[in-house]
């Protein structure tokens, strides 16, 4: 799965996610990448989120929308929202969940509970940061 979140100079944010699915899965199986609110969500008043991991977990726990809604409810940072949804609220789920998120001020939220998440980000003229492991 691949995904992106972005903030433009008009202050608008957007998210996109795309996947080739899961190896050796049943025909017709879909994961979170095409489910708005699970693997992809964006709302200027909170944040843009692109999710990845065990698709079924992101769907049943409505991960992307939970992060955006938690931010609105708690008025917390996007990073706090990502960490709460993945590492507190869903700490007992067995499986991998990872998200990248971005709010309308340019603050990133990056969180995952798996062994790795391939990710990279850039703000204004900073050098790109790229990571695979912690």
């Amino acid at each position, binding site marked *: 799965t*691949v995904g992106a*979140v*972005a903030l433009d100079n008009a202050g608008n944010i*957007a998210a996109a996610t795309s996947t080739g*699915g899961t190896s050796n899965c049943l025909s017709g199986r*879909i994961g979170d990448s095409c489910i*708005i609110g699970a693997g992809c969500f964006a*709302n200027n008043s909170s944040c843009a989120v692109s999710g990845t991991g065990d698709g079924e977990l992101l769907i049943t726990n409505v991960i992307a929308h939970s992060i955006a809604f938690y931010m609105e409810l708690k008025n917390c940072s996007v990073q706090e929202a990502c960490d709460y949804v993945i590492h507190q609220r869903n700490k007992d789920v067995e499986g991998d969940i990872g998200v990248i998120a971005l709010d309308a001020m340019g603050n990133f939220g990056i969180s995952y509970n798996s062994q790795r998440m391939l990710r990279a980000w850039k703000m204004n003229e900073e050098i790109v940061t*790229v990571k695979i492991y912690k």
Partner: protein
Amino acid sequence: MKNIAIAVHGGAGQDSEFIRMNQIAYKAGLVKAVNTGYETLKQGGSALDAVENAVRLMEDNPIFNSARGSALNAKGEVEMDASIMDGSKHSAGAVSIVRNVKNPVTLARFIMENTSHVFISGYGALEIAKENNLELEVDSYFITEHRVDELIKERMDDTDDIKRKRKNG
């Protein structure tokens, strides 16, 4: 000057030898996607343009599990999913179980901007792509050696095993 920013991901899950062996290629692909999306923003493009351009670049890169580098299902077929969402209009587009479409994220955006729907799957999505001249590719374009090897390694005999396997995107 207002802030502009972009982040991309290439999937999360268990580590693997393939990932460890290909870290340089993965990082190069991620950096290229960020720079492509960032350039779109720097030129005054919208966040929607930026995420579509960044994801398209990764869809065209066979090392990532999307479009060109898709995983294969138990029948060895490619079934792609994608979605996109515009935070300013709260509008969204999504496709699932799509074949032959070179960039599923572009089809998702087409559905968001040109239909009154959000989510269209399977043969309906493919029909829209064909009728509106979105770029298509033949089946073999989406088949990579790495994914065939992965499928062969993971193949399990009876369907019950398949139903119960962990589903890692």
